[in-house]
């Protein structure tokens, strides 16, 4: 079953993609054309499903076990997932705290997540990198960076 998994995943992607093709509106003027907005998506869904089917039926032809052999421990999973949660968290606090503070916060949390415990590193790296990035983007390159809703309230 493990060997057939790549093929089955491809079929799943093709099916999810195909379910959305019906929702594409075809303008009346284009309906009689050979190429409509649906043509390429239909071809791509069919092609991916076909490749998925081949990989599912003949998994021996599909390649090696490769990365499937890698089995991260619970700590690895937790840190990997934690890093992605941090990225999502950064997206949610960005508008509220602004780029400078959010950057420092995500760096601090990232360092802590990856087992950095030296107080000097935990404080100095986030502050210096966030400040350097802000200076580079905002001051040197002149890009507008949102200062953060929290700090704009009092203005």
């Amino acid at each position, binding site marked *: 079953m493990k060997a057939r998994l790549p093929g089955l995943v491809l079929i799943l992607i093709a099916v999810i993609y195909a379910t*959305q093709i019906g929702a594409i509106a075809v303008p009346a003027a284009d309906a009689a054309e*050979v190429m409509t907005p649906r043509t390429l998506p239909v071809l791509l869904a069919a092609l991916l499903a076909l490749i998925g089917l081949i990989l599912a039926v003949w998994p021996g032809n599909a390649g090696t076990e490769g990365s499937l052999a890698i089995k991260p*421990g619970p700590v690895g999973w937790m840190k990997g997932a934690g890093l992605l949660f941090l990225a999502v968290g950064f*997206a*949610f606090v960005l508008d509220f705290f602004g780029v400078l503070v959010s950057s420092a916060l995500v760096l601090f949390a990232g360092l802590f997540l990856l087992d950095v415990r030296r107080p000097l590193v935990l404080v100095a790296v986030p502050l210096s990198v966030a400040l350097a990035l802000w200076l580079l983007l905002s001051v040197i390159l002149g890009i507008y960076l949102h200062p953060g809703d929290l700090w704009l309230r009092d203005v």
Partner: protein
Amino acid sequence: MFEGLDIGIQTAFTPFNILMVAVGCFTGTFIGMLPGLGPATAVALMIPMSYSLDPAAALILMAGVYYGAAFGGSTASILINAPGCSSSAVTTFDGYPMAQQGRAGKALAVAAWASFIGGTLSAFALLIAAPLLSQVALNFQSPDYFVMMVMGLTAVAALSAQGQVLRGYAMAVVGMMLATVGTDGTSGVPRLTFGQLDLIDGFSFLLIAMATYALAEMVLVILEGRLNPGDHVRATEMRELMLSRDEVRDVAPVIGRHSILGFLVGVLPGAGATVASFFSYALEKKITGDSARPAFGEGNVRGVAAPECANNAASTGSFVPLLTLGIPGSGTTAIMLGALIAHGLQPGPRLYVDHPDVFWSVIVSMFLGNLMLLCINLPMIPWLARLLRIPQPVLMPVVMLFCLLGVYLVSFDAMDIVIMVIITLVAILLRWLDFPLAPLLLGFILGGYLEDNLQRTMILYDGGLSFLWERSACLVMLLFTVALLLWPLISRVRGAVPAER
């Protein structure tokens, strides 16, 4: 050609563009040295910065980062047996044993000289080959472009690692699927947006590049427990970098032949620096035979020179299809293609005519870049090596922040970061299932253009397929595509026959 060369020299030798070469080479070397972050990631990280530059300076910067990263990748391979990028993976075979024998400086110096000579010789070849190919490609029309894009996608998938060909095709298709998300360029109809307004403009190229390369790679490094604490990297002394006359005599012919080989492999769409380095190592091992002392894999200096020379020559060679046909020769040049498009340039034969300053200045900057790599980096090797002592748990959050801010700065929409994380999860799943991601990126970039050209072709030929045999360029490329499709089958049969005997 000489007129173009003059334009290139005038553009590339401005103080600002020389600075861009220096910044690119240094940044690329630094990022390339970091295990897990290869040229593709290095170039992707430069895209947000390149938006504020003019197209010529942006491409010069990214080209510098590209061959700087290819050069820098060897440092981590030699010093800590952790290749900075896939193209320098083969350097670990002999480079790391040399470092263990106390010859780290020697290995780094050989890698530096091999990269410099390989890069410079292939820049000369690029100077001659690129304009010639551009003139031929100027006669191309929509049907030719369509078939050429199919050929490029087929080549990338067909030249995937052994046993991954079908998976390569699947990823090219998934990439094209991602390209169809958003408003259809011809009819203006929203497609495959799942009812989300955030997807109405489709995915940005940077978002896909960061998600599939940078962020996914970082999470995989953590999952696989490859986090390097950096505490076991030995300091390198300056005097270790000198080569003896015998060593020069030994590696000179190796560098010569693998410069040519690397360039030719790099020119093939899809082959790239990794294929070139593995191919060169295998060939050099075969040429030298069993007489090599020390043996290959035990610290032979030729085992460092051959792949390092070939991967830099191939990096330069991969600019030929990018600049002249608009078909990237590797995953990294695929990212550069996207960046150029974001700058309003369409790489291909018209680039040579419409933007000669960009076309020629990039080629000229390569000579400067290779020289700069040697002049800046050779004396800096002992200091650069110290950067590997920065623990990855400290470096990784910083690199992640670069990725997040890079994606945010494209649209100033924080939701793009959430979409990037979702695509990262899918990319990790695909990597876990051993799918190659370079064809996905190429499929994403070429998908839109492929559809546009197919649409125009269908209008021109009234929905028929006669263009495939009526146009000679189409026919030649179609036959080449069929050969690429059949190549894995042929090589399998050829491999099976001797085994049966």
